[in-house]
């Protein structure tokens, strides 16, 4: 059993004689529909996969890529539609069953036991491990599989000692060790350095050459073009099209990915004032200790909304956290007006007029178990009239809550009720009420309308526009291109922690934005980009003086 852990070609062949017409078909998904809470994440999606190919699944966040993969991996059961594996219709009730059919998925969050060794992780749950797990033969098999596919990793190393890229190799090894022939990689490069990504591509090619089928999920055009044989584009839960990668035109793919007509509403422009927030050469680490922000330069002026576009995970969260003081910046400076706040505490920044609408409104925006009255008082409780010496005036807190409730149209509130029971739109209104009632000079708003219904979205956007007209400088981070195009007075695009381009919203087309978000610089932007990035130091001084 040591000799050939993947009984590869043998299983594929007998099926072909029966299926006849489609000799190389590894998997076919037919009219897959899957809804969550009535919202379709996949709507009659067709997808087919051949042995020996790398098939890219391209699309924005929320396009339904992960859902489709999870259906094939047995994690989700589709509402309707058929799954055929090797020409045979199957019903996959669990990831275990999918594994038995040779389908395995590497999730974005690794399923590895941190303190176990590589070999132990492979043995875990593997049906062929004997009662007494023989370490030596296991370690030998791991090493052998690793050599075969360029997945070298020490079998004796504990997972926590490995880099993210190595951990990913273990995930792939784990699937190969279980005899997986159809490998799904969900955004595998999101956590990798460029070098690690290259080595992953080498592995993928080796596996494809070995006859295995690989689904490669990505939103990065360059990678898709580099490594895949075919590409299928998803948008809003539907399949837009499939093509041979060799025939694909990058601009056309970008358009397919972003797609929808971006109706720009008549923008009421206001005259921007002096710089209220300046970020210069900001570099910061992400949670994994890898640089998530690299030399970011930004400026937001009074009465201006700067929209930060980009696919999630390209440094947006880190940017917001660094500005509000929740994340240490490694290099660079942050100015509020002309005061350097790089090394000040979050409290000091709040006192100096910085407001923050966090992207995860339940986790970092509100204390979900507390009633709304308390949540609304969370920033203002330090000053009178809410505070009376060491005490907090209950009456003032309630009065204030009632005023804000009316002013911001927060509905359905019963005062003793935990805030977490409110609807998303009302919670977001409440966060804005709390932040804006402190009269901030600068507001950082991350994903302000994510997950809200249409009416709430409109209301929140109007609040932001009104606030801008009142003179506030707003840095709005959003994945929603429509929102970016609609509200921004200037657009910057973040890609892998760097600013990929700066645009006037009037010049922004879906193609240009799509290309920038996928890591491609079009010619027009290359020159526009050159200006502000040229000399960070010089820019820092001049903008500081002009205030």
């Amino acid at each position, binding site marked *: 059993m040591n000799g050939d852990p993947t009984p590869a070609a043998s299983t594929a062949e007998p099926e072909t004689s029966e299926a006849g017409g489609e000799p190389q078909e590894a998997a076919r998904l037919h009219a897959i529909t899957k809804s969550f809470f009535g919202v379709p994440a996949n709507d009659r999606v067709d997808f087919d996969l051949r042995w020996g190919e790398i098939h890219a699944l391209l699309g924005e966040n929320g396009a339904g890529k992960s859902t489709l993969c999870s259906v094939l991996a047995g994690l989700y059961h589709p509402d309707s539609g058929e799954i055929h594996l090797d020409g045979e219709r199957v019903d996959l009730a669990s990831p275990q069953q999918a594994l038995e059919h040779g389908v395995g998925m590497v999730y974005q969050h690794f399923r590895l036991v941190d303190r176990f060794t590589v070999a132990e992780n492979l*043995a875990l749950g593997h049906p062929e491990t004997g*009662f007494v797990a023989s370490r030596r033969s296991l370690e030998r098999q791991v090493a052998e599989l690793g050599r075969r596919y360029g997945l070298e990793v020490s079998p004796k190393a504990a997972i926590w000692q490995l880099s993210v890229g190595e951990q990913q190799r273990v995930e792939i090894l784990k699937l190969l060790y279980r005899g997986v022939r159809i490998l799904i990689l969900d955004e595998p490069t999101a956590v990798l350095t460029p070098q690690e990504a290259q080595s992953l591509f080498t592995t993928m090619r080796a596996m494809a050459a070995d006859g295995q089928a690989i689904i490669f999920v990505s939103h990065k055009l360059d990678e898709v073009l580099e490594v895949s044989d075919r590409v299928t584009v998803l948008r809003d839960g539907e399949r837009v099209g499939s093509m041979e990668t060799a025939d694909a035109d990058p601009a056309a793919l970008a358009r397919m990915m972003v797609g929808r007509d971006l109706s720009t509403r008549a923008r009421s422009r206001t005259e921007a004032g002096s710089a209220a927030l300046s970020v210069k050469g900001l570099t910061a680490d992400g949670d994994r200790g890898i640089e998530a922000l690299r030399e970011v330069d930004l400026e937001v002026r009074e009465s201006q909304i700067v929209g930060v576009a980009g696919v999630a995970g390209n440094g947006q969260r880190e940017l917001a956290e660094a500005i509000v003081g929740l994340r240490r910046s490694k290099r660079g400076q942050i100015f509020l007006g002309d005061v350097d706040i790089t090394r000040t505490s979050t409290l000091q920044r709040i006192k100096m007029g910085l407001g923050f609408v966090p992207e995860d409104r339940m986790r970092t925006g509100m204390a979900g178990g507390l009633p709304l009255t308390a949540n609304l008082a969370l920033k203002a409780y330090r000053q009178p009239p809410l505070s009376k010496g060491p005490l907090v005036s209950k009456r003032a807190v309630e009065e204030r809550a009632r005023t804000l409730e009316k002013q911001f149209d927060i509905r359905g509130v019963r005062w003793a009720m935990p805030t977490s029971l409110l609807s998303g739109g009302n919670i977001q209104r409440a966060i804005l009420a709390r932040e804006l009632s402190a009269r901030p000079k600068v507001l950082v708003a991350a994903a302000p309308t994510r997950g809200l219904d249409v009416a709430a979205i409109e209301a929140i956007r109007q609040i932001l526009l009104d606030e801008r007209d009142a003179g506030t400088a707003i840095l709005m981070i959003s994945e929603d291109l429509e929102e970016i195009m609609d509200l921004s007075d200037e657009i910057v695009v973040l890609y892998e922690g760097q600013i990929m381009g700066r645009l006037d919203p009037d010049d922004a087309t879906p193609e240009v934005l799509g290309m920038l978000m996928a890591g491609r610089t079009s010619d027009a932007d290359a020159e526009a980009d050159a200006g502000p990035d040229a000399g960070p130091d010089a820019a820092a001084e001049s903008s500081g003086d002009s205030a």
Partner: protein
Amino acid sequence: MNDSVLLLSLASAIVIGTPILLAGLGEMMTEHSGVMNLGVEGMMLGGGVVGFWMSTQYPSMPLAMAVGAGVGALFAGIHAYLAVTLRVNQIVSGLALVITGTGFAGFVGSSNDSALIYARPKSSLEPVFGEGMQELPLVGPLVFGHDWVVYMSWLLVAVAAFWLFRTRAGLALRAVGEDPATADTVGISVGVTRYVYTMIGGAGAGMGGTYLMVEIFATYQHGITAGLGWIAFALVTFAGWRPWRALVAAYVFGALRNLGFTLQILGASVPSDVLNALPFVLTIVALIIISARPAAARKYSAPSALSIPYSREIR
């Protein structure tokens, strides 16, 4: 003269260390599954008192031990139901178990028709090895002077170490304690694993309590464990969740327990409260020493999911 006092107190450290070892080893298995059971003291009393009652009825130590283990496991089953099925706070549930077990032992032990406080076991254990081997210098009293329960506890240490770190079942157990979500995705039942090992932990505590009452004191008194269950709980941490270390640590704690008598014989006087606190002080010192060395801290630290209830929906 002083040598023999030392030797005798070491030998009796092994004896008093045995209930600590049995209960601690059980708790160690429980904690490897990610369940923390603070109720060791209660399970020792509750299981022990029934084991002791058995020994007053019928002259068989194996039977008494088995009954004690069974009752201890039942007590642990209450904790498993609360902590695993209902997902209540494990600290609260464990503390409730201490109170329940203590109350149960008091009720059984002092109710009129049993009158366990006046009863005596019908048999006592003899050393396993013959006189000749017991009289060997040094190893005689230390290694060959004990009853079969002591040797069984050594065997259990070896079995636990092998089970945890060499077998597939041990791998699954540790995966459940480290990362239940991952264990779940590879088809290991988190709930069943946690129930089984929580009850194994209760069985260990029940055996420890029985041995303490039947063999060491040969009597039952209210609150007779006098904190030994808590010492067993501390033992797991002190031993870094490793069985062989637990063997050594149990005898260190046992020696501390005896130190008062030894010191008295030698003419020094130290308040017994100070000595009783020493196992806990030692545990804290061990934690400090371990935490100063990151590599050791990783290796000898608690299972990552210890005392965190697992639910598929909330990840």
